């Protein structure tokens, strides 16, 4: 077994064994989808077209799930691992940093993929939501979401100093961003809020989910959205590369 596969297995074990991360990262978006799905009825208008509410919510929750898993969840776990001294300890082993990061990223990809599958299965069974037919584009979307939000997650982890504050800080960023980006339903907001949403990566990521899932278009039909999501991810990764430290900040 290669060191990468070994570390990926370890990451999966660590993730699923930790009840907080499994509930917060994996279960919570699924639960939110069930809750919102039972509240909304009828149709939601996206760009002058009416879609079944369950489909729009499912699309929004895929967006929220990507940001929750790869941005908030990853950042929290990186900050905690740094502050506990786990990263420092790992650095004294022969495990290469690139292999480690690759395994952490792939682990997030596995978690998010399972989440997307669960959302579609649940949407189908509980709300008769449509199934996607652009499977290739959907796969690309999942990978793009994890990689870009992981870039943001690593950048944020580099800027957050304390382990205790990490979860609060990230949720203060994540929840308003998700709300403004339309992750929880309609996007019918006043112009000011819409203007803010128009710079957020999650808004463009959800645009892509709409395109691929609701409009059944290939992902590359919206290059602007791909560009904005990627730019945020690259920006985060650059901050991470410059500022991320392996050693605890607080001690």
């Amino acid at each position, binding site marked *: 077994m290669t*060191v990468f596969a*070994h*570390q990926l297995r370890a990451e999966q*074990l660590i993730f699923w064994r*930790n009840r907080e991360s499994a509930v917060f990262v994996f279960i919570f978006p699924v639960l939110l989808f069930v809750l919102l799905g039972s509240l909304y009825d009828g149709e939601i208008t996206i760009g002058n077209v009416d879609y079944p509410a369950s489909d729009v919510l499912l699309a929004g929750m895929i967006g929220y799930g990507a940001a929750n898993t790869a941005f908030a969840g990853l950042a929290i776990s990186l900050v905690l691992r740094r502050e*506990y*001294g786990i990263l420092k*300890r790992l*650095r004294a082993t*022969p495990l290469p940093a690139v292999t480690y990061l690759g395994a952490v990223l792939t682990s997030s990809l596995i978690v998010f993929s399972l989440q997307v599958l669960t959302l579609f299965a649940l949407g189908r069974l509980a709300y008769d939501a449509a199934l996607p037919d652009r499977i290739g584009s959907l796969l690309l979307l999942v990978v793009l979401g994890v990689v870009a939000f992981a870039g943001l997650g690593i950048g944020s982890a580099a800027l957050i100093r304390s382990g205790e504050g990490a979860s609060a800080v990230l949720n203060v960023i994540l929840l308003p961003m998700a709300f403004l980006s339309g992750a929880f339903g309609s996007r019918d907001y006043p112009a000011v809020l819409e203007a803010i949403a128009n710079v957020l990566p999650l808004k463009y990521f959800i645009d892509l989910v709409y395109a691929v899932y609701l409009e059944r278009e290939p992902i590359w039909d919206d290059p602007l959205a791909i560009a904005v999501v990627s730019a945020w991810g690259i920006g985060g990764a650059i901050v991470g590369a410059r500022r991320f430290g392996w050693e605890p900040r607080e001690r």
Partner: protein
Amino acid sequence: MTAISVRGLVKNYGEIEAVRGISFEVAVGEVFGLLGPNGAGKTTTVEILEGYRQRDGGDVEVLGFDPGRMEPSFRRLIGVVLQTSELWANLKVREVHRIFAGYYPHPRAVDEVIELVGLTQKRDARLKTLSGGQKRRLDLGIALVGDPDLVFLDEPTTGFDPAARRNAWELVRSLRALGKTVLLTTHYLDEAQQLADRVAVLRAGEIVKMGRPEELIASSGRAEIRYRRNGEQIVVETGELTRTLHELTGQAVAEGRELDGLEVRRATLEDVYLELMEDE
């Protein structure tokens, strides 16, 4: 064979000179102790040798490598026990050992290592259920699972109760029996005296004394003579034990007195250490 060679090592943190040009060598198979109070530069020195920190001056060679480069081939050869670290609370002792074993080309058998550090009973226990002493033993276990040639122990028994400390000492002795080189930092003198083949006493970033514990004690030459006179405890400190003792006993014999509770105590490493810390 030299495992560690340090020449004129300098490390500054801003204005503070944490390490001021120290030099020492550690032979293969030796247990070497860095002794000194908090802030003397022990951890800084060890972390430079482990590769965590870059030095500001001097030459350092560890197992033939420059540790500052953190090459994987170097990291395969060392085992590290940090002063403080927590691992994944929900994983089991055996799982964590297996994870670390997977990083090394020729790891030791996981169960064997768990047995060596005395955690066989706790093999399937989650880390969050371990006591402080058991966690330190886990730290040692994962430092040994890669079968390193050199083990760094940074204050391995700080916060231990006396029984746990004795257990930890047994472990370090077993490392010596395995032929490992050990670099140990401690601020406990009895620990250095018990475990180290040689010690370097650090004060304010400089080595003020180095040698085998017995040598350091002998070099002090100080001793104490205690006896009681008319129920009163008398303590005589002397640098010339034979002469002083001869005078005391000669006088007593001449006067036909008994020196009640006569006791002669040689200096311990602690006395030597306190002496070193005193003369600024």
